[in-house]
């Protein structure tokens, strides 16, 4: 009986050690990120959706996204202007490029060009949007 207890204690210790090492060498866990590609802007002025023009997104390559802006009641927002920002919060750096909305496609849809993700990990892509309903901001999380 005595031996069995020793083995069980040893087993528990090893399991704890093992799970520590296997969980990314004890790095603190990240909070769950909201990865939705459609969401309300911070003050609820807009509902914004983003979608890459081609998937999968290739690391290190310039590509375009379609940004769709609607009011909360589903009306397309026309003639919006955008300031685009973003980066990697974990690494204290911004986007490797400066993406711009280059085309108004109608029906509240806009083409965002010049997006590039240069590494895997958690990226933020933020928009300051100004149009007739007002100014508001929205941030999307991406994990590559």
């Amino acid at each position, binding site marked *: 009986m005595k*031996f*069995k207890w020793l*083995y*069980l204690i*040893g*087993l528990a210790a*090893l*399991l704890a*050690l*093992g799970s520590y*090492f*296997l969980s*990314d*060498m004890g*790095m603190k866990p990240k909070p769950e990120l909201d990865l939705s590609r459609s969401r309300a802007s911070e003050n609820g002025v807009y509902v914004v959706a983003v979608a890459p023009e081609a998937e999968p997104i290739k*690391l*290190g390559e*310039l590509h375009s996204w379609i940004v769709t802006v609607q009011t909360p009641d589903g009306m397309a927002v026309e003639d919006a202007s955008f300031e685009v920002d973003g*980066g990697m919060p974990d*690494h*204290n*750096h*911004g*986007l*490797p*490029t*400066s*993406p*711009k909305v280059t085309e108004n496609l109608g029906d509240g849809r806009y083409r965002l*060009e*010049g997006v*590039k993700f*240069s*590494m*895997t*990990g958690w990226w933020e892509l933020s928009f300051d949007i100004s149009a007739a309903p007002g100014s508001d901001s929205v941030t999307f999380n991406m994990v590559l």
Partner: protein
Amino acid sequence: MSGRGLSVFAVLAVLGGILSGCGGEEFSEADKATIASLSLASLPAVPTDPSNRYADDAAAAAFGATLFFEQRMSRDGDVSCATCHLIDRQFQDDLPRAKAVGLNNRRTMPLAGVAYSPWQFWDGRRDSLWSQALTPLEEPVEHAGTRAGYAHVIAQHFADRYARIFGPLPDLSGVPERAGPRGTPEEAAAWQKLDAGKRREIDQVFANLGKAMGAFVRSIELPETRFDRFAAALAAGERPEGDAALSPDEIAGLRLFIGKANCATCHNGPRFTDDGFHNTGVPVVDGLPEDLGRQSGVLQVAEDPFNCEGAFSDAGPDDCGEFRFRVREGPHLVRAYKTPSLRGAAARPPYMHSGQFATLDAVVDHYATAPAAPAGQSELHPLTLSERERKQLIAFLGTISE
């Protein structure tokens, strides 16, 4: 099996699991995918250079190779590109700071695989290989020549070869031997005295020389390494053996590289670079003028008449995405330098943009301690690495250098 036997079995199983997670040969599927992404087999074809219509012209590349090794392409006839880009030394010079006509402020970069980079130089102050090649030619501490002088060299020694590729040279009678906008005050004044049409003709010759050299440099490929053979065996589900084998320490280093040490965050993809600019808190070199890295590089590329959107570029309106969507300002640009490829790095100390670190030990030390940046903010986080882990990381770097 008895209760005791079962316990022993469980302990051994857990122990085995831990060991395999730390240096054994079993990689997770995610690790295998990362290893494959770092392998030369993942390298796509060399991207086109729409700004250089001669980029893939064999005659232009051969002419570019001639110019690359040509010492007459300098003020005093004693410096060529190969003075610092030594062909048998990965096209670099092993010096902390390049030495040509004078001493440079930065370290010579190796040339294999540079055609994949959207930005050239440590600070990305040029956006193509051909506009890069033109810059040292007129740098006072590098070749120290002038574009009018180079046009004369071509007219005197290479007129036929030039004409076969680019068409006849312009009439250079009356053009001074030394004249160029980036030269000495006398050379700049002589340049200004030329009429605009003649300046434009000489600029075109100068651009063409850059395009020939760019075509040559594009052809310099990254060699296969032991790591690539290891990755190929792993991808094929085979046991890496012989010249594909990695030692247990090298494998442990690889695990650190793609795992806890976070190296593969920036040193990613088959060239081990994200082609981006990062402030990693590299110290300043005493006695050198202020160096703001990408912050000044991004201003210089915009002013370069030979950039992708300039008059001498062959690019169409949609061909200059990297230039058009470049980050123009922001705190992240301060003392940010281009992530160098790590292929071959173990065999070419010293390290960093001005050769600040003499050894890989010093480099790993820097990344582990993550000191504050002299200006701007370092992106590094401190890292706890044991002596053994440091050696393992460096051992892994050896596998992409041989």
